[in-house]
């Protein structure tokens, strides 16, 4: 079980001052255990802010979020996060990056080696274990990032536009590979993106947010069958959803 509930959450930057800015307004959400959720919206709708709060990187000014009933406050390894920017530690090899989390908790050399082997392979980086991040492409570094978070075995995976900087082909491959990994582990995923196609392809549920202040505008259930394949991107069902969401974001 790892269900996230967002309860009457409002966030105001600089609360109480003249320049106070409400970025999130009365958000209520229930993200079921093991589901893949996408949050879409134009820039300024507070989707990244919401995700960072789920990670515990900062606290909302009003309301709360819970993970399985426990109030989210501060960071915790149960809520892993993949960032928009490159967060791979450049001073560690690929393998050492992947086993970073377990090493923090004193995993033995054997345990680390086992975890490295498993997750380096899972994210498709076999043969690159001993490389430095600077020797890898942007897409490969993102794989390290994802492998590292998965190897840390969180209950919830928070992803903040992780593929935003990648080229179209790499992005599609990363999306398919992410779904493979997700089906194998069934962790609750919250995936922030501004790319509608990405959201529809990946998610069970799409939360559409409106901007200034950020509000939940619409929740779209995606019932495309799994496993999802690339040719689904051109089916009527897919395109119907895309058209509907696109119209919403236009307003």
């Amino acid at each position, binding site marked *: 079980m790892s269900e996230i509930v967002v309860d009457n959450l409002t966030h105001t930057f600089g609360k109480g001052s003249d320049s106070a800015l409400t970025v999130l307004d009365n958000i209520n959400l229930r993200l079921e255990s093991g589901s893949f959720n996408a949050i879409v919206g134009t820039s300024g709708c507070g989707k990244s802010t919401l995700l960072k709060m789920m990670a515990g990187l900062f606290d909302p000014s009003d309301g709360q979020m819970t993970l399985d009933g426990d109030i989210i406050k501060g960071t*915790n390894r149960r809520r892993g996060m993949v960032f928009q920017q490159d967060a791979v530690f450049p001073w560690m090899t690929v393998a050492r990056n992947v086993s970073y989390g377990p090493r923090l908790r004193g995993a033995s050399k054997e345990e680390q080696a086992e975890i490295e082997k498993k997750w380096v392979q899972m994210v498709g980086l076999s043969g690159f274990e001993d490389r430095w991040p600077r020797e890898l492409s942007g897409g490969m570094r993102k794989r390290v990032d994802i492998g590292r978070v998965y190897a840390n075995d969180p209950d919830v995976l928070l992803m903040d536009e992780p593929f935003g900087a990648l080229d179209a082909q790499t992005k599609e491959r990363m999306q398919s590979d992410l779904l493979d990994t997700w089906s194998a582990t069934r962790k609750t995923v919250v995936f922030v993106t501004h790319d509608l196609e990405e959201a529809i392809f990946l998610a069970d549920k799409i939360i559409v947010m409106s901007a200034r202040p950020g509000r939940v505008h619409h929740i779209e259930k995606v019932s495309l069958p799994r496993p999802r394949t690339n040719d689904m991107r051109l089916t009527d069902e897919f395109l119907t959803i895309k058209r509907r969401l696109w119209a919403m974001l236009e307003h």
Partner: protein
Amino acid sequence: MPLQKLKERLMGRMVLGTASVATVLLAYIWVTNLPDNNPALLPPIRDIFGAFIANVESGSLATALGASLFRVIMGFLIGTSAAVLIGCLIGWYKVAEYLFDPLIEAVRPIPPLAYIPIIIIWFGIGEFSRILIITIACFMVCVVNVIAGMKNVPQVYVDAASTMGATRLQVFRTVAVPAATPFIITGYRIALGAAWTTLVASELIAAQNGLGFLLQEGRRYFLTDQVMMIIVIIGACAFLMDRAFRVIQARLMVWSEARE
């Protein structure tokens, strides 16, 4: 294309570097061989070399070099160690920053050599005083770099580590320190240069031995060749130590994209 290759090779680092050094050397030889050159002002290279041999044979060069190296290394080690320790604290912990930063900012613009008189008044002209001056100089230039390194740790690395469950201390140890290493190493290298600068100054003022003392002795007895020889020796020592440092730097920084 072979012409292009030839040009590249001729314009290469080694060739151009050697050429500039050789030009200065040849110009010096030429000037000192002019009929009306005064060797007491510009001693010819054979005299400088003669002074070198004489000081090696008498053992005075070895003694001086030993004494000076000891001071440089001691001052460098103590100064940079303190700088890394205090710089890390200031750069990472807000309380330490509020506490120490104004102090360091106030003291930083004062040239270390300005402390020489007060140090002599307090501690005399012994070994301790000279090492103390070098220590202060190394600390001051190094600590600034360590603080900058700590403050420039990318936030996303800190966030990534925290969301993986790292404690504040673990983030410091496994993220902040390695991320700041490039700055810290630069601090060490600048400190090494500062160590040599202050060494000579401190030995010029008060010492019974050391390279600075030999310089002073050379001036007093008008041994220009000895003065020139010591200048070359100091240059060579500082150069070699800096080179050794670059090797260590390259080793430590294999991961960095901006290696030297």
